């Protein structure tokens, strides 16, 4: 489909030959940014994995205090938000402003719900004295070194905290998309920002897909 004059006039940046090159460039650029995010979170995953090998009992003890139902619900919430995000992109490409807005709002609401549930969890950790550096005092059955459990919780807060920061940024990006969409900014010919925010949002979901089993499901059965 050739670019319409108006689409080109409003959206084509001067250093690109056509909207197609611009879109492909943006997509590759966003994927490269996600590559840096993989390495960024990867450093923490590497730290987690190395300590898990040496401090397995402490990891089990820490994981068993996680509220698995909240974690599972949050996983489902994020998966649903990924669906609504993908639908938002789909409707933006079709030029359906109303449905795009609806899907963006649903994604935002689900994302904020995730953060709310996380807040409830964090509060629970605070109440149970599981926050390193602030009020850490851990008592749980098992044969472990308590200092190592504190490291588990340090990594738990660092990893889920960094994930939450990225969700908050994502919420900001969704808000910006809602405003722009409300102004009629996105058309079937130009909807790259929606697609790009979608990629970012799915990546944040990806990180959680790995965080959930690693932090919550280490050994949720236990034989005494």
């Amino acid at each position, binding site marked *: 489909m050739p670019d319409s004059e108006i689409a080109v006039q409003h959206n084509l*940046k*001067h*250093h*690109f*030959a056509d909207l197609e*090159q611009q879109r*492909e*460039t943006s997509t*590759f*650029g966003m994927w*490269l*940014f996600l*590559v*840096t*995010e993989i*390495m*960024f*979170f*990867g*450093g*923490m995953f*590497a*730290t987690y994995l*190395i*300590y898990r090998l040496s*401090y397995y009992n402490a990891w089990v003890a820490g994981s068993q205090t996680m509220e698995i139902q909240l974690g599972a619900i949050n996983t489902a919430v994020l998966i649903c938000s990924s669906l609504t995000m993908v639908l938002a992109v789909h409707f933006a490409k079709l030029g359906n402003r109303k449905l795009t807005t609806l899907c963006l709002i649903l994604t935002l609401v689900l994302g904020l719900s995730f953060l709310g549930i996380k807040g409830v969890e964090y509060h629970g950790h605070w109440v149970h004295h599981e926050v*390193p*550096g*602030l009020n850490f005092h851990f008592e749980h059955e098992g044969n472990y*070194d308590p*200092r*190592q459990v*504190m*490291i588990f919780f*340090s*990594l738990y807060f*660092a990893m889920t905290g*960094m994930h939450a920061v990225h969700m908050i940024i994502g919420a900001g990006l969704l808000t910006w998309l809602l405003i722009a969409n409300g102004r009629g900014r996105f058309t079937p010919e130009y909807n790259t920002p929606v697609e790009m925010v979608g990629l970012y949002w799915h990546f944040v979901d990806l990180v959680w897909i790995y965080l959930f089993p690693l932090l919550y499901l280490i050994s949720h059965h236990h034989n005494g």
Partner: protein
Amino acid sequence: METAIQTTEPKKNYLNAEYGVMSWLLTTDHKRIALLYLGSITAFFFLGGFFAMLIRLELLTPAGDLVLSDTYNKLFTMHGVVMIFLFLIPSVPAVFGNFLVPMMIGAKDLAFPKLNLASWYIFIIGAGFILYAIVTGGLDTGWTFYTPYSTTYSNSNVVAAALGVFITGFSSIFTGLNIMVTVHRMRAPGLTWRRLPLFIWAHYATSVIMVLGTPVLAITIVLVALERLFHFGIFDARLGGDPLLFQHLFWFYSHPAVYIMILPTMGVMSEVIACFSRKRPFGYDFIAMSSVAIAVLGFLVWAHHMYVAGISTYAAMIFSLLTFFVAIPSAVKVFNWTATLYKGSITFETPMLYAFAFIGLFTIGGLTGVFLGAVGIDLHVTDTYFVVAHFHYVMVGGAVTGFMCALHFWWPKMTGKMYPEAFAKLSAVLVFVGFNLTFFPQFLLGYMGMPRRYHAYPPEFQVLNVLSTAGASILAVGFLMPMIYFAWSLRYGKDAGPNPYNAAGLEWQTSSPPTTFNFEETPVVTSEAYNYDEIDGTTQKGVEVAG
């Protein structure tokens, strides 16, 4: 040349297209952003040099009599942090990469111009945190932030400095991202990968390192800051953690970081040596592939910084073997540059003087790196001045020399003015003499056992230290002179014209200084790179302007 390029300077170029401070602070022109970086990193270079001067003054005498030992710790830390994060890492990519990459591939700008400007602002904000750390008491952990000293015991401004390093890291990431996407997506028609200037190959490989490695430093330094604030214990043995894990994560970036510092200058060398030998670089494919090889292999060797830290002997052996491998692509480049010189028509303009200096000094630095890669040798000379001499040979004799080479080669393009050749040659000679006098004695000092990061030393080491300090004064003069004559050239320098060196490359097909959008029409490339035979011949069929 059968193109429509004007031979007289057009009135409007990127420097005078708009006036006013805001036109610079809000610019998205990659060339103006390159100059913003040039100004900032030059200031930081002299700040780092100031710390170096205090270090060398202290080391004139064996006794620690100029500054307290704690202060000395801060001096070498700030020297390292400023020189590495605020000068070397950005230097060639952020100045010359930004300026030249779009022009060399026939594009009007980088892929993401606003991100480019954001990169500079992020750099300045990060530098601000580091400067804040300096003025409010300094940092004394060494630029390497080793734990648990940095997380638990140091009384200096670790969190501010760590934040500063974290933020400048993102500047680096975004610059690398921009360059990578630009090279993949915005090459002019006809510009295949094997027709790209080797400068582009080098910057592409550097960008791969920036994108893959820097985020790991970012997360590591965040963990250090969090540990310091909340006493986590991830890197503190007293709390069950492992300080070596910090070192693994830190060096996973910081070793590839040294390739970020040297690869772009290797790209510069290929351009300059080709131009002043009037020859295509020998073994173009090998030089291009060696850049990629350095980028990949550079990620496999980091624990050679940790041989004596407590890692397993078996891991040390693995990393030692990998370290020997990473030297090979660098050697390939040195051989190819030398072969380029063979039977070339060599002239000795200032950039070529710096290029010769680079080849010699980088070879010495690189070879001593291989010595250090051997575990048996490293056990004796690690943490001595041998290591200090090694990395200054590659970083100053290599990277800084390469930066000066690039500055002299492309100054006419960036400003439209020629610098005074005689003064430039003199300062190049002063830099070479001063550098060797400063750092060669340090190889001897280290071999004889003088430890690094000590503000006092046994009296038998004094003679070599005095020689080193004397060399540093000469080196300082050699670096100060360009400040003067480059400034002078802006006002009084001869007009350079589009191509004062008759060099190959699309950037030389524009005016000096270039117009804001570089090319009015996107060029179509029909010949191979480095077509010096065509340029120096009677017919010139390099570039056709699409019309």
